């Protein structure tokens, strides 16, 4: 974030110095949009920022990650224009934004993500139920070895389950806790709390005993995605675009962007572009699911009519 700020300052300074005498160009000072938050969204946000630089060279978007909590904390402090989040803002965060800035955070659903459960390819398991995941991750859960889930791991490493989780400011962490363990339950301590969606997948690829969760966009051929069943006996569903859209995959969530109050004109133009066919195609290419038309903000439809 600091680096981004410093860069923006440097860019402004260069511009001011470079065209000091020319007042007509001064008016075209480059605008910046500060954008921080969710690690789940950071790759897409980066791709958006890069492509938007070609569409609108007058606006530069500075993207940084750090987790949904970090992004929302920066938004409530008024230091970013857009916070990316893979969970809804909490009442406390909305309250803090009101106190600090007098403005209300405004939420935009820019797409959807399915949270995939990953294991090592050598693991014979193919599907898992929500209850089984809870047994593995919950504070009073009992599953500590793969044999308890009826799985025999190859090799002689023993079959201790290595739980891979996320650091506690991650939106993925909070969403997973709510979706799997329930609103008030806690994780069991002793999981490996990694600092990024990609790190989780990379560690599982190197650890035969591991299980972990990450956005399905982070899947690689080095890990195996499990099919997930809501209840034992029900059909287990693989996370994909269709199963997320039709709601059959049980662990899916919205991807959100927050602004403080109604966005300023240049921020609003950026959000409009994100909702455009081009913006949504970039999101889809990163492995996420585009937001359905009826969830696009109202002013987006208005803008479409005027050329």
């Amino acid at each position, binding site marked *: 974030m600091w680096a981004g700020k410093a860069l923006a300052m440097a860019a402004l300074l260069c511009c001011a110095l470079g065209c000091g005498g020319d007042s007509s160009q001064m008016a075209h000072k480059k605008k910046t949009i500060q954008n921080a938050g969710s690690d789940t969204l950071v790759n897409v946000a980066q791709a958006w920022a890069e492509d938007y630089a070609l569409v609108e060279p007058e606006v530069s978007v500075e993207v940084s990650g*750090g*987790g949904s*909590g*970090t992004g929302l*904390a920066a938004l*409530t402090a008024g230091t970013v224009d857009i916070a990316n989040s893979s969970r809804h803002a909490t009442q*406390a965060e909305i309250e*803090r934004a009101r106190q600090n800035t007098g403005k209300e955070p405004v939420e935009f659903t820019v797409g959807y993500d399915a949270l995939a459960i990953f294991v090592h390819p050598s693991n014979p398991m193919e599907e898992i139920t929500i209850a089984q995941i809870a047994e593995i991750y919950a504070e009073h859960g009992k599953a500590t070895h793969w044999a308890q889930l009826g799985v025999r791991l190859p*090799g*002689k*490493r*023993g079959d*201790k389950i*290595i739980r891979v989780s996320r*650091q*506690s*400011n991650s939106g993925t962490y909070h969403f997973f*806790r709510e979706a799997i363990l329930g*609103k*008030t*339950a*806690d994780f069991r*301590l*002793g*999981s*490996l*709390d*990694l*600092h990024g969606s990609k790190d989780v997948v990379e*560690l599982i690829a*190197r*650890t*035969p*005993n*591991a299980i972990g969760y990450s956005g399905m966009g982070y899947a690689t051929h080095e890990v195996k995605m499990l099919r997930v069943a809501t209840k034992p006996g029900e059909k287990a569903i693989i996370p994909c675009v269709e199963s997320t859209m039709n709601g059959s995959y049980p662990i899916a969530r919205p991807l959100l962007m927050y602004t403080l109050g109604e966005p300023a004109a240049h921020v609003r133009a950026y959000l409009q572009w994100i909702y455009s066919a081009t913006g949504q195609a970039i999101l889809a290419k990163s492995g996420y699911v585009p937001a359905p038309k009826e969830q696009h903000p109202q002013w987006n439809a208005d803008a479409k009519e005027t050329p």
Partner: protein
Amino acid sequence: MTERGRGEIITEWLIESVIRLCGISAIVFVFGIFFFVFREGGSVLFQDFKFGEFFFSTSWYPSSPSNVRYGVLALIVGTFSVTALAMVIAVPFGIGAAIFVSEFCGHKLRETLKIVIEILAAIPSVVWGFIGLTVLNPLIIRLFDAPIGLNVLNGGIILALMSVPIIVSIGEDALKAVPDSYREAGLALGATRWQLVYRVLLPAAKNGLLAAALLGVARAVGETMAVLMATGHAINIPGSLLDPVRTLTATIAAELGEAPVHSAHYRVLFVIGILLFLITTAVNLTADLVIRGIRRK
């Protein structure tokens, strides 16, 4: 004449005060940090802070939706287990290398070794962490058939490699400080080189070597990024060297960004900072007193 003299006096005074300021600034900074950490964390200490839970509970649930708990026992055990293993590896290696560099090797080899050791000390900690994550992790899984390679062993090896350079350079200074007359006397009595090291140099340089080891400990306790990556960052009382752990420093690094400023979680993280500050101050102070011990002799 008088004009010039006055100019000189003013310049003199100016330079003197600038230098004095530089000297005092170190003290100012240390007290400034001390003050800041205590101001941020201190207030929570006097408002029904649960010392029992803090020191004796392993439940660290700072963002629990229903039952927030701040127990750092597992983190303290994590820090000490990794540090202890690092010292078990680094002290014999470091002191051995110091003896070799100072007593046994030729001039050319010594200069080369010193440069290499300095390079070792200059490797950024995030690079060490990266080595732990990508090189040691699969190696430990393969060698020990461990379920996970990010554990006490991994963190201990990485920390040992990081503290060896400090131990070597301070240890070598301590051995150098032993007067040559001791060596000459030993050799004159017919001692072999090994006997000279074992019976004369080590006892004579005892305090300096101890100080070297203690400064290595301080380095290991305070290290953050490398252990964050290499230990697995799991809140866990380790049952063996192959269990993952989490350290005090890594917890602060991972969680301070998320904690809203002045919230309870934020303040407790600063209390952990105070705890770390006290540990490293105690270790450094001991090392300092030990070194003073030699000088007085």
